[in-house]
């Protein structure tokens, strides 16, 4: 009996404190703190540093904490064995405000709050045969990005832009490369890897091919998307966005 009481007491004591500073002003104060103390490693937009390798803080997931209290501890104490140094001299309020600001950076959105319908979006996805190029949950093609967890890395505005203006910003991984060999053969494919001496592509038949640059007559790079630009009604875009936003490994 005594043991049970002790366990119960421990359980209560271990309950995590809630963030008491979550107003709009706290967000702005947290942002100021972030800009002054964190951007040199985590980047001005918190997506990761250039000179130092601080991780992206906008994914809605953190490697060393999941709760607000956990984030508070990481910010206060730092992470041993890494360059992440705790803000030991910062006050309680300043640290909570930083936590509040970090939460606003998350790309996580509540899918139910979006205008489109997830189910209708799934239907459009199938009707347009998006799976010919995109994989979702282990099924689909390989000529476009795997969308199984796209809702974690792209917010709804970005997803809408991806659908309506696919060539606006194409990651180098999805550029198209056209190589001409010394004997005039032309091969085209997606740019899976390029380095100082070699080039690796996936061609239209999803074959992996590697070329030594020195052996090629020409290399051309197209920085446009290979996704067909389909003029979709706004409601269908909304539905697709809702469906894509719902694609997450699990809720953070």
């Amino acid at each position, binding site marked *: 009996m005594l043991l049970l009481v002790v366990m119960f007491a421990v359980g209560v004591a271990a309950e995590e404190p809630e963030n008491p500073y979550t107003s709009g002003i706290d967000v702005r104060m947290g942002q100021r703190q972030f800009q002054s103390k964190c*951007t040199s490693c985590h980047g001005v937009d918190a997506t990761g540093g250039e000179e130092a390798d601080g991780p992206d803080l906008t994914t809605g997931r953190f490697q060393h904490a999941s709760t607000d209290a956990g984030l508070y501890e990481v910010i206060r104490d730092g992470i041993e064995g890494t360059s992440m140094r705790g803000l030991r001299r910062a006050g309680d309020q300043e640290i909570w405000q930083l936590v509040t600001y970090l939460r606003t950076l998350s790309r996580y959105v509540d899918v139910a709050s979006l205008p489109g319908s997830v189910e209708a979006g799934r239907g459009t996805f199938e009707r347009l045969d998006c799976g010919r190029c995109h994989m979702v949950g282990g099924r689909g093609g390989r000529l476009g990005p795997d969308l199984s967890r796209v809702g974690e890395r792209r917010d709804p505005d970005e997803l809408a832009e991806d659908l309506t203006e696919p060539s606006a910003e194409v990651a180098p991984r999805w550029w198209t490369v056209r190589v001409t060999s010394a004997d005039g053969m032309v091969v085209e494919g997606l740019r899976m890897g390029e*380095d100082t001496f070699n080039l690796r592509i996936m061609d239209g038949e999803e074959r992996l091919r590697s070329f030594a640059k020195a052996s090629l007559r020409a290399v051309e790079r197209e920085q446009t998307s290979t996704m067909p630009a389909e003029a979709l009604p706004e409601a269908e875009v909304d539905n697709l966005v809702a469906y894509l936003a719902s694609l997450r490994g699990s809720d953070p």
Partner: protein
Amino acid sequence: MRPIGWVGAALLLATAHAAPAQEPGADGMPLLSPVTWERLVNSDDEPHNWLMYHGALHGQRYSRLDQIDRGNVERLELKWAHQIRQLDRNQTTPLVVDGVMFITESPSNVTAVDAVTGRAYWRYEHPLPDGIRLCCGRNNRGVAILGETLYMSTNDAHLVAIDARSGSLLWDTEVADHTKGYSKTAAPLVVGDTVVTGIAGGEFGIRGFIDGYDAATGERRWRTYTVPGPGEPGNETWAGDSWRTGGAPTWLTGVYDPELDLIYWGGGNPAPDWNGDLRLGDNLYSSSVLALDGKTGEIVWHFQFTPHDVWDWDAIQVPVLADVELNGEPRRVMLWANRNAFYYLLDRTSGQFLLGEPFALQTWAHGLDENGRPILRENVFPTTEGTTVAPIAGGATNWWSPAYSPRSGFLYVNSFDAEGIYYQRDDDYEEGSIFLGGGHRMPLAADHYQSAIRAIEATTGEVRWEFPITPRTRSGVLATAGGLVWSASVDGYFFALDEETGEPLWRISLGAAPHASPMSYAVGGQQRIVVAMGNVVFVFGLAEE
């Protein structure tokens, strides 16, 4: 082979002490003997050793070893590798002294290994306190040696002396208070019997300096601030009290000219980095090179590359000293490919500007005037909304070493062509906290830009060839007397180029990015080429025929 026993070992050591360098041991291999100041001055005469961070006092990172050359480089193979235990950016340039290699490791450790086999003699692990302030990683680029003592910077802003034979700590001097944002990452430089060393912390509003310490005791002999105080010349280039938090750190190893008795050392960015309104004026001696008296550390001359720097373009590059012919006259010069994208040729006796030409993409200046001062373009200062300017904050090049070959007359520089977006914002200095006054980012992924190894003709500033590599690469360059230029790329290749044409002659995929500069040594008559990539130090040599 039978062990020779303690008496025999003691006799051998005694012999080594008394004899000049390179006295071989019983097996024909060299025995570690004291590195005198004369040996350091004449290090080019013993190219089988690599006695200091840059290889020699002139900073050329040029090895006179020529066993590996353009004709046989194809026969290069891996001889051994050393895995560094602590995972971090590996920025070491090892030293090799009479068959022993000293490898610095992150955060503030050093290992001594046999240069033949790569197997360890000892390891020194420096205890570090909590709460060290670092802007850019737990770096540790190298050691210096004098006599039988190694000198190393530690991340908590100490300078330590370590016995080269045993790894024992001899003395430990606090250079500055790490809780105020000071730290140390660079190999010291030995000048006579003084250990000269700089300081890091430009992103924390420190006041930079260069120090000289008694090599035997660790006592400080002199300190020269890179931000002049009230009453000192140059203090008027800082509005109000801004000099107190002016930055201008000195986080790379300088060089020394024994004939002129001048130490040359680069100064970093002013603080805060991106808000120049908080420190109006030219902000001497930030983003400058200083020439210091070799005995007193007093400033003899200075040259500022980027007056009132608001882009974070530290003049933290290696001052490369060379003797060249200019307009038919022999000239003692300094070659400097700066982070601001201009190549400078200076007279190193006087600091006189001789020429300056861009060697990489730049959109901030129309050019340089007759004194080498930049002629600024319009709208290049950071703003709240962001201003796009080339080069990026990380620079057209950075701290990674260039190499100069007296054979070709070219300075080989790893360069990057890209623009960055610079933001200005208000900031308040708080002791020990980051003090940036803004931010910076690249608008596009690095793949949109270009890195290249460029060969700059030293006397004209003309880029004579370039070898494009995957952006953005942060690797130094080594030149060797076999007509080869060695460097590495971010995609994990280590390669050798023809010094005259830039043609790639050999390469190997090592699978991790470089953050260091290669070096060369020889042991048992065999030349070795060394590069640190990922967390590994790789050692190459020719395969036996």
